[in-house]
Structure formats: structure tokens, C-alpha cells
């Protein structure tokens, strides 16, 4: 018997716009309170355990939400921003859009 539990939501997935090579930051906090003051409780993520992976140098930190490093981008106007009071102890950066170029290009001409 075939049991399909999640296929019904397949068409509901939305693909957010992500500029190729966009750099993002997340603020790091020594404790939850500092993070909540900069953002809100539901925007703060606790220290990552080994199962969720991560860890590393910032494994014990609380993390704020992701925001665009380049604050002059139009997309940055609707992201969570750099934090209200600047209480972070540091930040981590990530880059997106480094995969997908060929697939998008071929779809465009196909």
C-alpha cells in the first residue's frame, strides 16, 4: 500500500527571491535575553546541538534572524534588520545563490 503523507503540500512551497551571491548575516548573542532585546523571542534561536550540527566556534551562542549584509539593497527593507540595540557579541555570515545557475539558465531557454 502506498502511503503519501506530504505530497498534498507540494504545490504550496514558495521559492523566495534570492539574488545570486547574496551575503547574509546573523547576530550572535551570549544569552537569550540579549537576543530577545534586539529582536523578539520567536526570532531567536538557541545554541545548536550536535544533532542539528553546527556547533563550532559559535556553537554555544544564541542567534538572531538572518538579514542582508548590504543594507542598501531593496530586499533589506523587509528583513529583520541588524537588531534594535546592537547587543550582539559578533555575527556570522553566509552566502547564497552559489548553486542553481545552470539549472535556471537551461530552464529559461527550454
Amino acid at each position, binding site marked *: 500500500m*502506498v*502511503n*503519501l*503523507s*506530504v*505530497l*498534498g*503540500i*507540494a*504545490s504550496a*512551497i514558495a*521559492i*523566495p527571491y*534570492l539574488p*545570486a*551571491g547574496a551575503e*547574509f548575516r*546573523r547576530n550572535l548573542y551570549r544569552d537569550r535575553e540579549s537576543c530577545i532585546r534586539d529582536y523578539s523571542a520567536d526570532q531567536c*534561536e538557541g545554541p*545548536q546541538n*550536535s*544533532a*542539528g*550540527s*553546527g556547533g*563550532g566556534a559559535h556553537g554555544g551562542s544564541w*542567534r538572531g534572524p*538572518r538579514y542582508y549584509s548590504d543594507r542598501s539593497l531593496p530586499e533589506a527593507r523587509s528583513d529583520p534588520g541588524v537588531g534594535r540595540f546592537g547587543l550582539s557579541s559578533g555575527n*556570522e*555570515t*553566509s*552566502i*547564497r*545563490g*552559489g*548553486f*542553481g*545557475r*545552470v*539549472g*535556471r539558465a537551461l*530552464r529559461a531557454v*527550454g
Partner: protein
Amino acid sequence: MQRERLAPRGDWQAKVERLGMDFHTFGGQPYWCEAACYAFTPAEIDVIEAATDELHALCLEAVERLINGGDLERLAIPETFWHWIAESWRRHDPGLFGRFDLAYDGSAPPKMLEYNADTPTALLEAAVIQWHWLEEVRPGRDQFNLIHERLIDEWKAVKARINPAWRVYFTGVLDEPEDLGTVEYMRDVCEQAGLAGQSLDIAEIGWDGKDFTDLAGRPIRVLFKLYPWEWLLSEDFAPHLLVGRTAFIEAPWKMLLSNKAILPILWEMFPGHPNLLPASFRRSDFSGPCVQKSVHGREGDGVCLLAAGDAGSAAQCIWQALCPLPVFDDQYAIIGSWVVGNKAAGIGIREDPQPITGNSSVFVPHYLS
């Protein structure tokens, strides 16, 4: 092997959509075609199953030889990645599934046209849609189709090898309905195996200097990708593949088999094998008509029939003996024979009025007569 015409179910679109297949029609023409079906005898299925198992075993032998030889230049794979690919083979990184395209008319031995070993599509329709069709339209009959159950088994095997708390990510070009349907189906079987899954578009994958990451910045430890390796290797994040900690499904070594250069390599290793077609890196090895294939071509792209005397192109191509597909009711039929967990697991059939199977070729269900 016979083709039978029949009336489609009146509400077939709604039925297949309920099963997750909303890519059933392309350009106003049905892609899922139940105006016909194929009937196979059990003996014919036995032949297909045995040939598939045999071909997969030959392919693994070829990978072993290529890895040990240390030279992947003929596969047009950048040398930077050779060692990384070899390591994935030596670690036994999982290769979950693949699909041979076979030419088979019910009498002569099946011939391998190619092996879609990296990003095989037409999965949901083969594993699920045609099974439900069988239960409604040919109740009491059987079908060569263990794909769904075997995939769950394979994900359970993956679960046994990883930290079971790890989330498995599923990626592809997800605004393409067919890719999304395949990725979501694979996520579903993964979750039925007891793992947590999450989908994200290929462009949403991030890099934090140490790991590939999801949209929340979490490291991606296991990634199922419906996105060809040769594309990944040519993109901006490619250098990170060499240092990242992500386990990929399909494993990097599978790119050796999805590459059309495997066809002449197999012929060199096993000349005269009844399930292989003569193939070469030189057009001049064929005096008459033959088929030219781009080493990285997909879904019929880069495949052309060359007449005698037609030199074709030399750029990253191989040449294969011409083996016309059988024709039933003016339709060329090709058998997609699935391998799941190193064993033959079922078939799907594609039809086209043209001799080259392409993206628009329709999927037709089958049953055992």
C-alpha cells in the same frame, strides 16, 4: 510485450493530482497517458529484471576500474574533483537509485541505451501513479513495481548510517513542477523511513565558510539533490564541495555512471555483452549510421541520429550503435528500468512518435498479463 488501447478513466486528472502528480499535462497534451498500456508476460519481466541486475553489476565494476585507474579525463570531469569522487566510492557513500533506459521488444535481449544514475526522473509516475492505475483499471493483476517499498528500505539503510536526528534536505529547481513532484515524493518516502525531511530550492543553499546551510543557517549534513553533478561542479559553490561536510545523495561517484562516456567504457570492458551496444569515443569506429550522444546530455538533449558518412560533432561526445526502439501503434517505446538499492525494482514505459525519447515523451502504465 503488447500495447493495448483503452479508454482513460473519466477523472484521471483529479486522480493523479490527488497522488501528487500535477505535472500530468504539458502544452495541453497529456504526459501521463492511460489511453494505452503495455502487457508483459512474467517471462519477459524476468528478462528485464535479470538484464537490469546484470547491467548494474557491470556498471559498478566499471566504476571500480575507473577509480582505481585514477583517470577520469575521458568523462570530462575536472581533475580537481577526481580524488573527492574516489573517496566517495571508497567510503561506500550511498547510491539510492537509478534508471536504465532499455531498448526491448519482448524477444531480443534488452539493450542498454544509457543509465540515468544521478538524477533519474519519471519516478513518481513509475512508483505510485501507475500502481494506483493498476489497482483501478486492472484489478487482480500484477505489475513489476517494488520501487516505493525499496526506496523506503534504502532510506532506512541511510538512517542506520547517519545520526538519526539529522534532518535530510531535498533540493532541485523547485519551481519546475516535475522536479518538485519528484523531490517531494522522495522526501515523503524518506519520512516514511523515519527521518525528518525538509525541501529547499537549489538557489537557497548557503555556505557559511564551513558548511552548506539551510535558510535558517543550519548546517546541511545530508542532501538529496535532483540537480546533476556536472552542473554543481561548474557553479560558484563547487570548490566548497571539496571541503564541506555534507553527504550527498546521489553520491559523487554516481556521476561516473550518468555520464554517457560510461557507454564506450563498458563496451571496452565487456565487448560483445548481450545487453550492451557497441560504443566508442571515435565516430570512425562506425562505418554506417549510429547515434551521437553528448557525454552530459539529458532527456534526449544532445542525442542525434547520424547517417552513414555524417561525421557529427567531436566536442564531448560518444557514439553508439544504432538500436531502433520497438514501434507499437506508431509509437516508439522505451523501457525505464529502475534500480533501487543495487537491485532491479520496477519499470516505467515512455512513448514518443519520434525515435528519440525526450522531455515530452509520454508515460504509459503497464501490467503483467
